[in-house]
């Protein structure tokens, strides 16, 4: 243990609190203590995270072998991901206070919810590939109880699927780590890569293969084709607040791992123009298109949002695969925007389920009469995801498209933006019907069910509405004033490319 101990606090605090919540009998019996402690810890977590981000530095936790150490550090990428995680985790935590009162065994949800927060912080702070892998595996395990929460037959099956895809993906990635450990001094993240040319001589083919394995392997968490199958099964069975963080932040852990591997260990220059890059671009574009199509055809709202995640996270991966600074900045900004937007959408879906019990989109006709404020927030977020200026999605897609056009990747330079445009249309097609049918149900709509059940004007409680509102506002404001964020991302891009 040597270095800046402040980095340890955002990891240890929520994990300890989570264990206390799981073990303490008082939290099982008394809801006030449970939610009070959870929200307090999440607020404190936000403060501690920012303190750690400001103080910076690094911390060596333990030495596994001479070459392999568990080490934390703070750089620009960890700042971006950690700040996002801490802020969003708090908002969803506040939402859960009200939402989870409708579910059983809340203490288990909050316990693991807190633990995952600590583990994700560890992932964001990781200073080398081994540390990243350790936290990555821990994240799979600790987020599993969130998927399993309902403990129904369906949930168990989804949990198993989640687990097997994750384990298979992680082992694919592990193969790459074993290879990279052999051709570098250590696996510490350094902008531009750490591999040594002399050790690599004659092993270029193997390098590309292992890079490909790692991208497919870590891409599992990001829902990238061909290992995306678990995502639409696992996300919707969890409680809405868990689906939100699974979709909005845990998929981003896969993105973070890929950023670290490609830009901080291997180095983008070794991959540019190879078959690996071309296959990667192809996979991301396929995923973008396929995810949108599946979402368009899906009638169940939470599943539709999960398919949308498959598609949208691959926007980010597409930006990364171009190995171009503009596209890189676009990809990272889409990490932030998609996370904010997808949380807003999933939380809305949860609010609808809790208030009305409706799960299918066609049931939601006339929703505007039930919860106009929530639906307005939903509409803002949906428009942002479609990419209507001046909302945030527009900014990231602009950078992605202009990066693609100037990337010099041959045919992909124009196929990419075309796919993004088609997918944006599909996004409008699967998100906006809820708004249209909700606010303008048409003349023939009498709203008998709404009258009969007394649902008119029945907004969800403020605990739920406020986080949705904040997220929707963020989706709007980040699009209007993206300047400082984009300039930070461009400085990251300049350092790695």
């Amino acid at each position, binding site marked *: 243990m040597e270095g800046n101990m402040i980095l340890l606090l955002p990891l240890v605090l929520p994990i300890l609190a989570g264990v206390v919540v799981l073990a303490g009998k008082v939290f099982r019996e008394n809801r006030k203590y449970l939610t009070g402690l959870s929200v307090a810890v999440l607020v404190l977590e936000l403060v501690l995270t920012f303190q750690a981000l400001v103080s910076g530095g690094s911390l060596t936790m*333990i*030495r*596994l*072998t*001479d070459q*392999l150490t568990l080490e934390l550090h703070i750089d620009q990428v960890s700042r971006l991901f950690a700040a996002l995680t801490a802020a969003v985790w708090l908002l969803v935590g506040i939402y859960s206070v009200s939402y989870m009162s409708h579910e059983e065994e809340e203490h288990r949800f909050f316990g693991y919810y807190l633990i995952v927060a600590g583990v994700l912080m560890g992932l964001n702070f990781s200073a080398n590939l*081994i540390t990243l*892998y*350790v936290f990555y*595996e*821990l994240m799979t*395990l600790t987020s599993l*109880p969130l998927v*399993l929460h309902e*403990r129904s037959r369906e949930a*168990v099956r989804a*949990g*198993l699927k989640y*687990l*097997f895809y994750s*384990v*298979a993906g992680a*082992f*694919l990635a*592990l*193969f790459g780590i*074993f*290879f990279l*450990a*052999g051709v570098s001094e250590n696996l510490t993240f350094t902008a531009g890569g750490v591999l040594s040319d002399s050790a690599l001589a004659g092993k270029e083919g193997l390098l590309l293969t292992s890079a490909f394995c790692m991208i497919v392997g870590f891409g599992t968490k990001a829902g990238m084709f061909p290992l995306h199958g678990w995502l639409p099964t696992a996300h919707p069975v969890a409680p809405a607040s868990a689906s939100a963080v699974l979709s909005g932040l845990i998929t981003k852990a896969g993105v973070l791992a890929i950023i670290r591997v490609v830009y901080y260990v291997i180095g983008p220059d070794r991959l540019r123009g190879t078959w690996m890059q071309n296959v990667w671009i192809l996979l991301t574009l396929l995923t973008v298109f396929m995810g949108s199509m599946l979402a368009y055809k899906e009638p169940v709202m939470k599943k539709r949002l999960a398919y949308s995640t498959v598609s949208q996270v691959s926007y980010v991966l597409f930006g990364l695969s171009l190995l171009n600074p503009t596209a890189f900045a676009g990809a990272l900004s889409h990490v932030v925007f998609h996370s904010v937007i997808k949380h807003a959408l999933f939380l809305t879906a949860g609010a609808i389920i809790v208030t009305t019990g409706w799960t299918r989109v066609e049931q939601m006709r006339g929703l505007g009469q039930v919860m106009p404020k929530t639906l307005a927030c939903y509409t803002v977020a949906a428009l942002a995801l479609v990419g209507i200026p001046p909302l945030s999605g527009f900014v990231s897609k602009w950078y992605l498209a202009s990066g693609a056009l100037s990337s010099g990747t041959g045919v992909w330079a124009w196929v990419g933006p075309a796919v993004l445009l088609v997918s944006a249309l599909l996004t409008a097609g699967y998100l906006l019907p809820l708004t249209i049918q909700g606010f303008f149900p048409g003349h023939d709509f009498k709203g008998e069910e709404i009258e009969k059940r007394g649902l008119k004007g029945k907004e969800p409680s403020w605990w739920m509405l406020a986080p949705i509102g904040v997220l929707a506002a963020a989706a709007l404001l980040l699009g209007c004033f993206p300047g400082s964020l984009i300039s930070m991302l461009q400085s990251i891009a300049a350092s790695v490319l």
Partner: protein
Amino acid sequence: MNFVQNFPFFSIILAMFSGIVSSVLDGRKARNLSLAMIAVTTALSAGTLLFCLGSGESYTFMMGHFPAPWGNEIRAGILEGVTAIFFGIIMFLAVLGGLDHTAEDVEEKKLNLFYIMIDLMLSSLLALVYTNDLFTAYVFVEINTIAGCGLIMIRQKGRSMSAAIRYMIMSQLGSGLFLIGLSILYDVTGHLLMSPARESVELLVAAGSYRIPMLVIMAVIGVGLAIKSGLYPFHYWIPDTYGYATPTASAVLSGLVSKGYIFLLIKIFYRVLGYDNLVSSQMVNVLYVFGITGMVMGSIHAIHETDTRRMTAYSSVAQIGYIYMGMGLGTSYGMVAAVFHIFTHSATKALLFISAVGLYEVSGDKKDYISLRGAGYRNPLAGIGFTVGALSMVGFPMLSGFISKLLFATSALESPHKMLPTIIVLAVSTTLNAVYFLRLVITLYSRRRPEDAPIPETRARSSWQLRLAILCFIGVNLVLGLASQPIVQAIRDGLAMFG
């Protein structure tokens, strides 16, 4: 001669005499004697290890006053010391954890017999670790077999009788082959002590004479010990034996007995036949192929099992495959990985067997998936223990299994022809491990369904010994996973001393 140098001899004799004394004691006293003896021998082994680390070299200990090339010798070095300590710890915890179940499963009048078998088992394991003499090795291999049979048979229930007979037949086949190998070796070299035999073997290989007998020796000794350690496809005795014995016996048999034979085989490879000769004669490739086949097939069998005890036993087949795969890589890195995996597997498999007992206790002593549903809530500590063991087997970071896999994979990168198959089989085997172990872990933590049969009234909580043993096993696993560096270094130094 330093007094400490007597310790290996003392520990073997102490274990044997405890067995003899136990024959006139009642069960309770025999049990206490056995536990005390295991603790003392472990301490003696620690003394030996410290001495070897201090002097930086191994030593041979002459039994009686017949100098080499006659007589009977013991040899102690770093690797022997580490292994003996490790075996002692696992043995102690396995006996401790299964204490009350042993008392239940075994007739009261025969309880002391059980502990005699444990004592003899430890003495034979220590002798296999320390011996520098092939014939002594053979004698203790037989003692080990008999003790093993006794441990299985003493629970006179279910299929334990037929399991013991099967174990006996397979083991005798193995020892028979081993004996044939020794006879031919004695015939061509004229020696039974390891060091002079080694010199003769080198001369024979250099002269190019007796090439076919040498091949036969390698093959017969290798296969003989492979049968006894349960390498695929010689594994038929494993599931019944581990599946129907009393918990202590299962843990000892799967965790230690097969490892004792593997350790002996490694010792013979290095100290008698010469590892380079094995590599050049392609024998290692045979072991390698058996090893990687076992890694996959063992896991596939395990997936088909619904009885969790047998599933864990089949997983041993896969793990033994890992060890032989490492030995078959033909590099010193591979051997280090194999030896480390011996430790990993002993610690983890014993943990799994012992903590599974805690889960069966709260499920009406049933061992199938459906009865175990929700058992992780009924016995939290056993659930955690089983989860840790399962994660370690799958190769979860910070646990011992991860370090094993890391060592295997990095050593595979050193041998160009075997790299790809090794990595692929490691990947497949890991995924298969995950399928059956994590499926069971999730079952342990899923809700019981209304249609499930009610759980019969069983004991309220596990005995403190079982809980202590589970905690200690988890600790051993974490130590191997987090502080592997000194252990790996000791293995490396110890293997260098073998050479």
